[in-house]
């Protein structure tokens, strides 16, 4: 009480506000922020003035204009009469698609390589080692071009396309699968499939709960029998509904195969290149993660009489994940960013489509700004997700 009192009234210390370190710090920070804001504002203002002086149109109005160009791979319907904004979304989806496929495949291959490098089998570990050494040390762009030319020159021309049972065609123009034609009645089959999947999930949960409680769940034989039963029910539904989903194979056109669903060679080559390159890096991350787990853990597992596979699955990998995930996150971010190299082999990604938009409209600053914001957003979302996952699997102190 006695100590607080002098702060009030006439006896307050006579420090000027400007000399108060707290106020000073705040003022300086505010000044810096204001300065930065001013700099940004002036830069934008300056750019706008210069563009106007050069009579270069600016603004985002162009996104509503008709694009007028074709795009070879579109995940959503696309026609030349649609807008630049829609074209940008088509490109974005292509980028996300190729990134997602590559991330999944690279993770699978990468784990195999990382575990393979530590395998006791000499051949496997050496194979994995040389794979990593060769692939990791070659530039990605070079690898993309290699795979593209390799895919293109190894494949037959579309007129002599390799046909598998007259349904799947492989040629320089890609892999063409039959187009599913859906007729009324398909809903019944769909609902049945969903119901069976739900039943399966329930059975797995029930079995696990039971195993935790009593030590015995569903036996292997019982699970296989149940699965076959489910498939038979589904088949019966399909026949009963009048076979509502038909596959329509592509037909030979004058130049290309007409109809069917085609996976472009650019997409295939690009996914292979991204996967092979990233898997080498992921392999090293996985190896480092596994080696980071104390040796005692494996030995403890062994002394419990567990099989090597079980030790890996239940003891080593879960602990290694804590080391792996943060590094894996940056690798995933790299894959997303590297997906912009697809433009070099004509894959219609965000950079390719955006580049066309940029050139047809001349809106350089706007398109590059959109690119930056888009890639930043994708990367931030990816890393937020991975951070969440990392926090979830992190060691919880109890």
């Amino acid at each position, binding site marked *: 009480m006695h100590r607080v009192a002098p702060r009030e009234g006439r006896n307050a210390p006579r420090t000027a506000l400007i000399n108060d370190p707290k106020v000073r710090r705040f003022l300086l920070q505010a000044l810096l922020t204001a300065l930065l804001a001013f700099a940004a504002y002036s830069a934008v203002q300056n750019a706008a003035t210069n563009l106007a002086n050069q009579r270069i149109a600016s603004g985002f109005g162009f996104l509503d204009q008709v694009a007028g160009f074709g795009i070879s791979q579109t995940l959503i319907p696309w026609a030349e009469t649609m807008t630049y904004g829609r074209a940008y979304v088509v490109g974005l989806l292509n980028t996300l698609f190729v990134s997602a496929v590559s991330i999944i495949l690279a993770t699978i291959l990468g784990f195999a390589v990382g575990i393979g490098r530590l395998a006791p089998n000499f051949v496997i570990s050496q194979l994995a080692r040389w794979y990593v050494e060769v692939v990791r040390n070659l530039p990605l762009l070079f690898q993309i071009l290699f795979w593209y030319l390799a895919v293109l020159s190894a494949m037959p021309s579309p007129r002599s396309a390799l046909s598998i049972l007259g349904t799947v065609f492989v040629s320089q123009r890609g892999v063409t699968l039959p187009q599913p034609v859906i007729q009324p009645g398909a809903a019944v089959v769909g609902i049945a499939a969903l119901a069976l999947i739900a039943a399966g999930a329930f059975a797995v949960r029930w079995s696990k709960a039971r195993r935790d409680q009593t030590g015995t769940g569903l036996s292997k034989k019982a699970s296989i029998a149940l699965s076959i039963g489910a498939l038979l029910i589904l088949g019966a539904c399909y026949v009963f509904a009048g076979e509502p989903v038909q596959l329509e194979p592509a037909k030979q056109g004058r130049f*290309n195969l007409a109809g069917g669903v085609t996976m472009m060679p650019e997409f295939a080559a690009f996914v292979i290149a991204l996967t092979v390159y990233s898997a080498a890096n992921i392999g090293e991350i996985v190896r480092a993660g596994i080696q980071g787990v104390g040796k005692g853990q494996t030995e403890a597992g062994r002394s419990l009489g567990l099989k090597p596979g079980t030790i890996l699955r239940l003891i080593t990998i879960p602990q290694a994940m804590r080391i792996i995930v943060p590094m894996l996150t940056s690798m995933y971010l790299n894959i997303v960013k590297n997906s912009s190299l697809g433009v070099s082999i004509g894959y219609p990604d965000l950079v390719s489509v955006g580049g066309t938009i940029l050139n047809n409209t*001349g809106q350089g600053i706007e398109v590059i700004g959109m690119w930056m914001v888009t890639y930043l957003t994708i990367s931030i979302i990816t890393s937020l997700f991975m951070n969440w996952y990392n926090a979830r699997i992190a060691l919880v102190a109890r």
Partner: protein
Amino acid sequence: MNRTIRKLEVAAAAIMLSAVSVSSAIAGPTMDRIKSRGAIVCGVSQGIAGFSIPDSAGKWSGIDVDLCRALAAAIFDDPNKVQFSPLSAKDRFTALQSGAVDLLSRNTSWTMQREASLGMNFAVVNFYDGNSFMTKKSLNVKSAKDLSGASICVTSGTTMELNVADYFRANGMAFEPVVFVTIDETAKAYETGRCDALIADSSANYSRRAQLQKPDDHIVLPELISKEPLGPAVRQGDDQWLNIVKWTHFAMVNAEELGVTKANVVEMRSSTNPEIRRLLGAEGNLGEGLGLTKDWADKILRHVGNYGEVYDQNVGKDSPLKIERVANALWKKGGLQYAPPIR
């Protein structure tokens, strides 16, 4: 305190200026910068035979290159005072807008959109062209109308992407575009069989065909599916420079019309024809009005030659491309090349 802020402000301003360095590039007239630099910076292609292509020694040649050399001859009396800056189709406009090049002499099509929203002016048309398709003879395609369902290799950042889409849409045909950044990548993909046809300016198709391994296996289809008036472009807002580029081309066309060639220009100085005398600066002093010298056209012809000579040597009968003059013949011979009089 105040002084620190001032310093910071200046630093911030400097950063901004360098970030948006276009501002300084626009202010000064182009001629002043060319003279102080001692050379013209000329934006050219990355290699299209006949238009702008470097040889194994790095020496550039082509019809677009000769226009730049003619400008250097007119300004410096030395056709070699040119720095060539090879640009992809995609980067060319940014290079011109930012002031990285003084002019774009890069087989660029004159379109309304480019003048309306890219801040550039086309000076003249030094080659009348149109898009056409090149395809393999073995596909037995006689006309572009037969290409329904084909895969077409296209170079990004060009009018072709729109032309090919328009053409197929107008004719109710389907196609698959495969888009590459550089003409070399596009041609490579076409050659390996990724596409059935390649779209390019007709002249570029002939030049590319000559470079293929077996030129006789390929055919350039006769239809021109678009108008592509190719010519040099400059930034808007510098009329003096625009005039110099315009009249350099016009001088070469007028010289062809008047029969003044690289070989006979010296003796033509004593010609009695008043038009020739005005062209070569023996009468009148029009060159200085443009910011050049009296004998500017004389220098162009002495060092580079007239339009017909440049055409024949690079794309016409004396070149491997052998493209007929047709639309690029002089107006007196039924073509479109027509220059306003020098008077």
